[in-house]
């Protein structure tokens, strides 16, 4: 079995994994980082979005081996000992989540949007979320959350 090594949420990790192990499996099953979720098997829903070298990636669509040597950030890597990141705080303030299952992917995806577009319009947000499905919120409060999170990050 190949050995994969990467940095996850600032910590160096290494493990022997079956070649077919997906990044999301590695995060959930080997590292017990269960905040990253699996909602589909066709790369459509976005519940599994994490950052790999600063870019949002669907971790169900990438082998763990492909992340060898990479910097990975998951939802567990955002808060500062329980103090929420401004984007997390915006989701809470704007009721941008209900069941919470799609939420980690939404937050990770939103951060990648804001990195490249610090002041996204409503349409920018809606277009960006093409790859993230939520069944609970009707997106109304997710869009508001992301715009509010972006504003808070601009300071």
């Amino acid at each position, binding site marked *: 079995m190949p050995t994969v090594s990467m940095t996850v949420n600032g910590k160096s990790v290494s493990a022997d994994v079956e070649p077919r192990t997906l990044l999301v499996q590695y995060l959930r099953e080997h590292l017990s980082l269960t905040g990253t979720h699996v*909602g589909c098997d066709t790369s459509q829903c976005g519940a599994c979005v994490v950052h790999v070298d600063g870019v949002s990636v669907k971790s169900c669509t990438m082998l763990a081996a492909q992340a060898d040597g990479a910097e990975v950030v998951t939802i567990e890597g955002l808060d500062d000992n329980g103090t929420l990141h401004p984007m997390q705080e915006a989701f809470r303030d704007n*009721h941008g989540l209900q069941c919470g299952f799609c939420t980690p992917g939404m937050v990770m995806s939103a951060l990648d949007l804001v990195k490249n577009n610090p002041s996204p319009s409503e349409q920018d947000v809606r277009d960006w979320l093409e790859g993230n499905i939520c069944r*609970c919120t009707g997106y109304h409060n997710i869009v508001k959350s992301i715009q509010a999170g972006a504003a808070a990050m601009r300071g």
Partner: protein
Amino acid sequence: MSETGIGARVKRVEDQRFLTGKGNYTDDINRPNQTYAFILRSPHAHARITSLDASAAQASEGVVAVFTGKDIAAAEVGGLPCGWQIHNKDGSPMAEPPHPMLVADKVRHVGDQVAMVIAETRDQARDAAEKIVVEYETLAAVTATDAAIKDGAPQVHDEAALNTCYDWELGDKAATEEGFAKAAHVVKIDVVNNRIIPNAMEPRVALGDYDRSTGDYTLFTTSQNPHVIRLLMGAFVLQLPEHKLRVVAPDVGGGFGSKIFHYAEEALVTWAAGKLGRPIKWVSDRSEAFVTDAHGRDHRTHAELAIDGDGKFLALRVSTLANMGAYLSTFAPAIPTYLSATLLAGVYTTPAIYSEVRAVFTNTVPVDAVRGAGRPETSYLLERLVDRAAKQTGIDKTELRKRNFIQPEQMPYQTPVALQYDVGDYPAVFEAGLAAADYSGFEGRKAETESRGKLRGVGISTYIEACGIAPSAVAGALGARAGLYESAQVRVHPTGSVTLFTGSHSHGQGHETTFAQVVSDLLGVPFEAVVVSHGDTAKVQFGMGTYGSRSLAVGGAAIYKACEKIIDKATKIAAHILEAAEADIEFKDGNFTVAGTDKSMAFGEVALAAYVPHNFPHETLEPGLDENAFYDPLNFSYPSGCHICEVEVDPDTGVVEVAKFTAVDDIGRVVNPMIVEGQVHGGVVQGIGQALLEGCVYDDEGQLLTGSFMDYAMPRADNVPFFTVAQKSVMGASNPLEVKGVGEVGAIGSPPAIINAVVNALEPLGVEDVTMPATPMTVWQAIQDAQAR
């Protein structure tokens, strides 16, 4: 109103864990020495199993066991039970064919479970399942609802002649015919309520565990009602007594109905965990969810409305064909009957109604409750019919509705189809809806849209639903095999903090916040001092769970009753300690005061005294402050509302865009407006999904063509606008909190408003009807057909 009490916009306590990746969903739970199950499923819609050879799978790496339908049959465990029995017109019971955990002889839909492989890892289980050799003799399949009753249609079950599960009726047929005899106008409509797939974002998961030292079983499962699963699985399937069986539904990632039902995988992993003495986890993937989670709707209805010369509705007759799928799911028979036909009066005074429903089996996934469950079908039928009636009679669609509304002074109002509405003010809600939507400004917006070469339409729906399921006596009389009360236990701790144990289950609704608001408000304790416990049969005394918008109307009422008992007991304790008569103790803002004096005890002081009692009179006052309540509702609750949709249609491509959507709902008292608005947003988008995007397509051989998120169009962020959501609350609902329920209103009110808007937009082109989902292809074709006429 306090900042955290009833009515306050309190931020959710559950969000911290969900936002930091610390939620505890079923697949996040692992047990020592755990194995993994993979279910081999039928690739055919209808076939006899002629042979099954699992020997290669048994020998495959990592395999612990393989179980087949023959093993299940030999183990003499039960099949999956149905919770509701409907009777035919002649009084005989419905056909109720067996629903085995694993099929031994004949598969009846693609996805039917054939064998279970258990291995050390998920991948090993999946690899081994591919080595099972099953030979099938394929049979012709029937999938379309109307095809099931045709002569010569393939028969799904020997026990159900002509594929008929039941043929049921409700209402006064003779009185209805009399109404039609007097009619100046008869308006007819045929509608299809399209089959939809619930698709909660968290796929189903079941983890069975068996404690070899005690013989106790534990099932962790993605359920909306763990106690119901314990009851159904323990008593009817596995014959396990409840004290040996614990069911835990931890954080659950959405349900929308699909996680009410008892599924085979739950029983399989529990049963096999006992056989093997090891924990077994099964995780559905999304493809599996499409062919195993119960689907929703799938009704075909013909209806006729008799109207007099003044535009008053005289009578309504309705005939529905409802698809049950291949087997009866837990609540399936009740959906087209008692959850649908009983609402056929809507918000109108139609004096005579007759409805008949024929339910059929087909070679498709079982159909059961999905958000709204029967009520969206009725609101869609009525509001499409009323719009058509407006056109046919020449009476404006707002005026026709106003002429027929039940008036507030007619409350309580006995409908001709069994229900008695308790409170409501439909004219006021309607006017509030028109105002919030700026209905009178529509023509200006239409002109603007037309200047861009598009069409614009406006659609209205008014609806009523019955929530707070259900008064047990009524439910029993209607065929429910259980009472549908709810329970709550309020445990006050010695230092004054409170744990609420509730039989309701939260899977997105935010009960940990709203229920804490209720307890905090009633007991006068800080919001932060209340924690809500739910979802574990080992902690919570009992529960009927969360569905049918019942959590606050029924579960909340149980909380209210338990809090009343706490206050009664605390009053006795305060009276004893303050040396006053009980009748002289006043409870206000968390303090027990002797009337007219400054002698007072805070709630926390009473709590401490309850657990540190040095001189309680043994005969009359027990120590402790911990109370239980079961609440059986007096009546359903009846939310109503007015939804108004404006669409823009591109006549060249058929693309429909929801340009403006307004929902004004009467849901009674609001505990947390922020959560209420979120529930309406989500419900409306499920309605937009059904109306414009989501359609379940089977081919003639019974293969599900819309079997993934690449083929089944879930609403995405760019399919929907921001919404205008408001409440027009009418108090007086028949429960102590005067709440009505909000979980389903969006999905019930929105589809007819959307389709009425699409039809309205296309009227200039001669289009009279559009079917759901109104995809670009459907709309474009409707335009072409109309132009060709």
